[in-house]
């Protein structure tokens, strides 16, 4: 090799901005992921701006406008764009406010489960031995319970309410992350590059979180996006049973549960619209997760 240009044309700048630009380049190649991200950002925006863009309060009841259909149907009213529910509350406004709760639940539950699961899983997979045995048997015990039942028991102990429901769901989701992380760490730990880092003098902490963990992220990101949607659904189920969000709260799952009696009657909008909101949100998050995995995995990058 006879390279004469030493720094010519090659940027050696590894600053954060450059890395972000690189990340965006690979992420934007996946069109579905971009659509998902746009929708997700819109949703976040809607959630933040809820008090200003919602046409009515989430708990305001209009006694003269009970069970109105959406505006494009017969009997529809332009001031209630997506119709009203059984006690005359505007469904659009409730959906807009509900985005706050659902996103909040998803983010918090996934974060707690992810962070806790990763730390416990890495420790178990890295140190093995009795530490591993102890942790994994504990996780097996949690996994042996039906998830909703265990969450119910935990909420019964902690007391009903949205925050406690979220903690309970996070605890129930934790073992999945622990198992995934542990399996990935175990398979990476014996690779030569880890030993090379060790020979270079890397400490246990550096080996665990800087060398091994970044190579285990792909399954974790996918699991996290799935948990995000599951968290919203489980929180809804707890709300339905009276242990999660309490009734006037416009949480999507609670709305869905409240509208159960309209599933087979003519008022389809009361039950369909919250369901569609959950569906589209979950789909968007899954698309983003897919794009993230592609963008974060250098093995899938094309040079």
């Amino acid at each position, binding site marked *: *090799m006879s*390279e004469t*240009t*030493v*720094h010519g*044309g*090659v*940027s*050696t700048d*590894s600053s954060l901005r450059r890395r972000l630009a690189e990340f965006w380049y690979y992420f934007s190649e996946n069109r579905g992921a971009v659509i998902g991200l746009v929708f997700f950002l819109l949703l976040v925006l809607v959630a933040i701006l809820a008090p200003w863009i919602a046409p009515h309060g989430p708990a305001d009841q209009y006694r003269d406008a009970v069970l109105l259909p959406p505006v494009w149907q017969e009997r529809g009213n332009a001031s209630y764009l997506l119709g009203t529910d059984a006690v005359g509350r505007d469904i659009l406004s409730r959906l807009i406010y509900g985005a706050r709760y659902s996103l909040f639940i998803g983010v918090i539950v996934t974060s707690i489960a992810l962070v806790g699961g990763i730390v416990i899983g890495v420790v178990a997979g890295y140190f093995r031995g009795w530490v591993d045995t102890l942790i994994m048997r504990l996780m097996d015990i949690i996994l042996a319970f039906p998830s909703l039942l265990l969450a119910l028991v935990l909420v019964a102990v902690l007391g009903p309410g949205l925050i406690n429901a979220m903690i309970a769901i996070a605890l129930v989701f934790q073992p999945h992350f622990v198992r995934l992380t542990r399996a990935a760490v175990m398979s990476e730990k014996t*690779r*030569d*590059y*880890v*030993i*090379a*880092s*060790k*020979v*270079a*003098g*890397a400490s246990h902490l*550096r080996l665990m979180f800087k*060398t091994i963990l*970044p*190579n285990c992220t792909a399954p974790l990101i996918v699991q996290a996006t799935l948990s995000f949607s599951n968290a919203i659904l489980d929180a809804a189920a707890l709300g339905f049973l009276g242990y999660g969000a309490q009734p006037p709260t416009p949480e999507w799952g609670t709305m869905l549960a409240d509208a159960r009696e309209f599933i087979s009657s003519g008022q389809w909008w009361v039950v369909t619209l919250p369901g569609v909101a959950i569906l589209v949100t979950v789909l968007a998050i899954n698309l983003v997760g897919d794009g993230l995995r592609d963008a974060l995995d*250098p*093995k899938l*990058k094309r*040079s």
Partner: protein
Amino acid sequence: MSEIVLEGRNIVRDYHVGGGLFSAAKTVHAVKGVSFKLEKGKTLAIVGESGCGKSTLGRILTLIDPQTSGELLIDGKAINIARDRVTSEMRRKVQIIFQNPYGSLNPRQKIGEVLGEPLLLNTNKTAAERRELAMQMLVKVGLGPEHYNRYPHMFSGGQRQRIAIARALMLSPSLLVLDEPVSALDLSVQAQVLNLLADLQDEFNLTYVFISHDLSVVRYIADEVMVMYYGEVVEYGTRDEVFSNPQHAYTKTLFAATPKSDVDSIRARIAAKKAAA
């Protein structure tokens, strides 16, 4: 006589396997009392078949695994990692190069970070200094500065092995353990990497422990040869002694099993074939 860089005195390594619920514990003697001395700037080749303990010995020399008993002296200083912590000063003396260049580089680290990591962990150099040194090292192993910001998957096997060599040399070690460094590469690349290793040995006055099962490679690079068989050293001497006058029956079998490609032996083989036909 020059200084002794590496000395092993009766090094033993046992592995305990089994001992679970249904099986009794067994002890595998991977290395059974190996002794040797290695002078500065020389190459010791460890030869033997698969599973004879040569890689285990390599891991002990690189301070990855502790020896069960026996003494290991690096630069005249006894070290046992089962007993005391490995200081960064010790780390800087010994480095290793692995057989498989596809597994030995972290797929999420750019080449620059791969090369900078040993410096980051063991020295107080600034980021700019580390980058400068990494760039210089890339040129020394036959790559270019433009490779600094690339990921390992963008390189071929031979280039990756060059990167692995560069990483090992970043701390300017005195001893390099090469665990079959060319057996995963094709023949033309093998020659390039071997020549690179020979050049670097001259330039930095390095001492090599070269683990291999390829006798033609060993004949090319080694000063001394140690033949291992089931964890024991069956033959130990200079290259010429061992190759011209093998003493042990296993060494003779090993040499006989090496394919010969000189003109006389090819002619003899063709003649034998004709005679048989």
